[in-house]
Structure formats: structure tokens, C-alpha cells
């Protein structure tokens, strides 16, 4: 059933269109990574602060409160961009072990948030009243840090798995140029 879904998804008008250009996929992927660069720092800031490793001068409450909206919007953008990447070759991802691992890790991250939302992420002021964050708060932060790094690494791993070409019904137009350089940036370096 999941396989049928991925085949249907990638055959929809939107994703057939996106797949038609060899620029779309790398541009969306780059934007996905830009989000990671812009908002990953806020996750590091939060987790390392709760762990007591860095930025201990700043109240936990201040960091949680001031970065919350940002992280939320960054995550939503990352998920949308990630879904666009997935849709372009959904069937191929269905066979990709690292993709499945990444999804499982994302679900674990969601569970981590749900479990500790009431006791850690919404209780910054209370944590600040203690000399150091209690064990359960540090556990939440350590898990978050580990899961985010594992998500980034499994994301990178996706690209290393050879797709089972004989089973696939669609693929992204390969390569940005064949023969003569034809990308816009190519002209900057073209000679003769």
C-alpha cells in the first residue's frame, strides 16, 4: 500500500513537473540545507544550554521563549522542502534504508518533544530556579542533540544508496549539463 502511495504521489502533476527540470531538485535540496544552517544553531543553543555545557549565563526560559517561534517556522519550512524532495522520487525513497531511518528518527524526535513538553520545554522558568537542570531535562536535551545529528547524517546517507533502477517508474532528470557546460555559472569560468 505504501508503495502504491509513493507511485501515485510521484505521478501527480506537481511532482512530474518538478522532476522535469534538472535544477529543481538541487535547488530545493540546497534550500533544505540552508534552513538547517540557519536554524540548527538554535537547536544547539537550546540543547547545550539545558545540558549546562554552554551559554550558562543566559536563563533557559529566555532561550526557550525567544527561539521557539523561529525553530517552529524553520522546522515547518524544512518539512515542506523535505516533502517536495521526497515527492520528486517517492518510489526510490521507498526502497532507501537511510530514508526510512531518517523518518523513524524524526518520529522519535516528535515523541521526545511530546514526552518532555510539559516538564522541560514549557517549564524554562522552573528549570532556572534550580542550580543546574535536573536529570530528566538533561536527558531530553541529550536525546534531542543526538537525534538531530543522527537525522542530519542519515539524510546525507540517503544519497549513497543505489536506487533499484529496474523497479522504478520515474527518476529525476540526471545531470545539470551534458557535453558543453550549459549552467548559468558555467559562463563565469568558460574560456576560449
Amino acid at each position, binding site marked *: 500500500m505504501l508503495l502504491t502511495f509513493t507511485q501515485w504521489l510521484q505521478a501527480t502533476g506537481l511532482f512530474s513537473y518538478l522532476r522535469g527540470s*534538472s535544477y529543481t*531538485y*538541487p*535547488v530545493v*535540496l*540546497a534550500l533544505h*540545507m*540552508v534552513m*538547517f*544552517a*540557519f*536554524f*540548527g*544553531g*538554535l*537547536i*544547539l*543553543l537550546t540543547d547545550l544550554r539545558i545540558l549546562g555545557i*554552554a*551559554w550558562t*549565563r*543566559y536563563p533557559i526560559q*529566555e*532561550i526557550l521563549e*525567544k*527561539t521557539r517561534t*523561529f525553530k517552529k517556522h524553520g522546522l515547518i519550512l524544512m518539512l515542506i522542502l523535505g516533502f517536495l524532495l521526497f515527492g520528486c522520487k517517492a518510489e526510490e525513497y521507498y526502497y532507501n534504508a537511510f530514508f526510512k531511518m531518517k523518518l523513524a528518527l524524526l518520529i522519535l524526535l516528535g515523541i521526545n518533544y511530546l514526552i518532555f513538553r510539559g516538564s522541560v520545554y514549557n517549564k524554562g522558568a522552573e528549570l532556572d530556579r534550580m542550580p543546574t537542570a535536573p536529570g530528566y531535562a538533561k536527558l531530553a536535551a541529550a536525546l534531542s542533540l543526538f537525534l538531530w*545529528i543522527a537525522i*542530519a*547524517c542519515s539524510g*546525507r*546517507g540517503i*544519497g*549513497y544508496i543505489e536506487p533499484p533502477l529496474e523497479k522504478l517508474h520515474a527518476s529525476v532528470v*540526471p*545531470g*545539470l*549539463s*551534458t*557535453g*558543453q*557546460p*550549459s*549552467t548559468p*555559472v*558555467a559562463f*563565469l*569560468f568558460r*574560456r*576560449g
Partner: protein
Amino acid sequence: MLLIENPLNSSELVFPVLECFHIVGFAFSVGTVAIVNFRLMGLGLTNETPAQLWKDTQWWTLGGLILMIFTGLLLFSSDPDNYYLNYAFLLKMLFLVLAIVYNYTAVRKTAASNPPPGGGKTVGIIAMTLWACVVFGGIFIGFLTSTLDINHI
């Protein structure tokens, strides 16, 4: 033909593992730089002054940069021809130098001067755009199939 074998190429796992460290270094460097630049734009940790944020992130930024550049050099060494003949790689290096120089001149100076709210907006936007260009360059390295002709270099 050189007969020197790069030990990094002895295992298929070395490259992907190095890439993971490269990504972690990048999250630390650009991520902490983003905290300062967002503050210059009047966003994020607005209770703190930009100067204070610069002070508190600078060693994490530097550590991330060192990890990123060191692993980057190792990745480059695995197949130099594949990189220096690649336009995306050349552009990435150009933007990387610009982003680092800009960070340690304009961003550093602006943050130290504690501009009024929103006063460092332009500097923050330029800095983050430069870092975004570095990311774009990095992604496109793997998507370009044709390279520069070695005979024309």
C-alpha cells in the same frame, strides 16, 4: 601518473563519515553565526546585546569552522580533480572566503558597536546570504556532470 595512494580512499566508509563531521562542523559554525546575525536583524535573542552574543558564540563558531575546514580539506583530498574542475566547488570556495572575511570584519564590527534595534539589518542579511551561497555551492558540486576542461586551466 602518480602512484601515491591516499589512505582516505582505502575504505568506502571514510568519505561519508567525514561528511557527517563536515555537516556537524557546519551546523556549529553557521548555526552560531546565524544567532548573531539574526540578532543584528532584530530577531531571536533580543534580550542580549549583539556584542554579548558575539562574545558568547565566538569560540563555538571558530571551533565549528576549524572542524568544517579540516574535514573539508580531507574530503577534497580524496579526489582533487573532481573538485577544482567543478564550477560549483570554485564558487563555493569564493563565497566561503567572502563569508568568513565578512564575518570577521563587518559582522564583528557591527556587533561590537551594539547598533540600535534593526540597525545591523543590512549586515546581517548580507552575511546570511553569503553563507546560503556557500551551501548552494556545496549542494551543486554533486549535481554538475560536466567539469572544466583540464587543458584549458
